[in-house]
């Protein structure tokens, strides 16, 4: 694909620009400028988002027979029937009767990789997210592909079934819940308008207008760590800042928080994979 070559070239240029900038606050301004330039390039050529390389990789992983059972994920039902990917992400999270659970995209993929392909769940959740500079893991690449197939649609998860409403309510309670040695809740950083940590703007995720702007951009290529970050990785990283232990991929906490975020963002546009600082 033509776009992929361009994306690869840009990803290279960008990681060169940003090597070592990730955590140095004094260089936040440089990062912001690099992102501004980058957004401009994206506007001129939407194919230049390096995350599209991972979406391509994800498509191959989705269609290739893999795992101990050597089957592809095309038998995986993301809610619209086995193998249907078009628009599936836009209706997640949702309740799945086969698993008797509410699941977001990544949790559902985990379930399909385990139950259809025979992968070992413990292996999949062991190191689920890439270190800085490393490419997103397989599950994340597949999630990037699936999300890209809802790009331009609006969030339409109904979240109105009893178990779905329970998940949203659990997410809301977790959002306000303070714990850990720093006494942080999600709300500490994300429940007031116009706040920032150092120079990083903090979206007020409890407010629909703001949630609609950002939630649909995940999975996203994260410029400061030069890889794709999925939504569950984003939450894992926020819990890291909260001085909490490592959030388990596919946990009810992950699903509930995502259900709450998506519910708050309902009606917002999906622009995935997005691009983040």
């Amino acid at each position, binding site marked *: 694909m033509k776009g992929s070559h361009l994306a690869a070239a840009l990803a290279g240029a960008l990681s060169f620009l940003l090597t070592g900038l990730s955590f140095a606050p004094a260089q936040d301004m440089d990062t912001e400028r690099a992102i501004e330039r980058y957004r401009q390039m994206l506007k001129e050529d939407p194919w230049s988002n390096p995350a599209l390389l991972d979406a391509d990789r994800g498509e191959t992983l989705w269609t290739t027979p893999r795992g101990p059972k050597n089957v592809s994920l095309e038998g995986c039902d993301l809610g619209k029937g086995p193998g249907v990917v078009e628009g599936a992400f836009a209706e997640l999270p949702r309740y799945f009767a086969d698993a008797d659970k509410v699941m977001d995209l990544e949790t559902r993929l985990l379930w399909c990789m385990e139950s259809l392909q025979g992968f070992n769940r413990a292996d999949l959740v062991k190191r689920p997210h890439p270190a800085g500079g490393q490419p997103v893991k397989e599950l994340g690449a597949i999630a990037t592909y699936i999300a890209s197939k809802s790009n331009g649609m609006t969030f339409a998860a109904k979240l109105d079934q009893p178990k779905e*409403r*329970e998940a949203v309510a659990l997410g809301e309670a977790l959002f306000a*819940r303070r714990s850990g040695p720093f006494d942080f809740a999600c709300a500490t950083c994300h429940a007031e308008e116009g*706040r920032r940590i150092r120079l990083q703007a903090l979206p007020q995720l409890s407010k629909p207008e703001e949630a609609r702007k950002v939630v649909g951009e995940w999975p996203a290529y994260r410029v400061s760590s030069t890889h794709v970050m999925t939504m569950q990785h984003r939450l894992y990283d926020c819990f*890291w800042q909260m001085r*909490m232990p490592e959030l388990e991929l596919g946990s009810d*906490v992950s699903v509930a928080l995502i259900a709450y975020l998506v519910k708050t963002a309902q009606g917002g546009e999906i622009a995935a994979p997005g691009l983040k600082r």
Partner: protein
Amino acid sequence: MRAIAALAFALVAAPATAQDKPAVPAEKVEAAVKAAFPNPAPEWQARLHPDETMKACSAHDNAPPPALAEAIQARERAKIEYPADGQFMGDWRRGERLAQSGYGMRFTDYPPRNPNGGNCYACHQLTKQELSYGTIGPSLLGYGRIKEFSPEAVKAAYEKIANPHATLPCSLMPRFGSNKILTIEQVKDLVALLMDKDSPVNN
């Protein structure tokens, strides 16, 4: 009898909300958290679950009713440990380094390679020189000067950093002293950063 029954009901019923959301029992929330962070090291167990103060603050969206606010304030004030020598000010230069550092207590920070930081700049403006500051807390630029460098303000700054709930129940600021994030000596260095006449905060 009717009245008592009604009262009992009011006490146990979950708070009704405008959107009529299903209430989540506390045990369910705690169980979900426990399962989401499997097998934490024993010294991390306590991080998973909030203490009485955090429970109360979360339940009231950090705006506790007056009686509860008073109880929180008294409980947290009692947790403040004071310097044995009665000196509240250390070295502002060390304080500035602590204010810059966000290091410490994250799961990637073990075994510790540096002392824990206070990361004050994450939430506060402090000096004219540092432009990369957050805005979750108020600006502390010129703090000592504004407080006229009074001994009472020096002590109050110590107490604020050690345990902000002692003066503002359900503050969003971490309990740096009482939660053992910073040592007494480190808190003193930060007090100096705020209150020393020579500190860049006041110049």
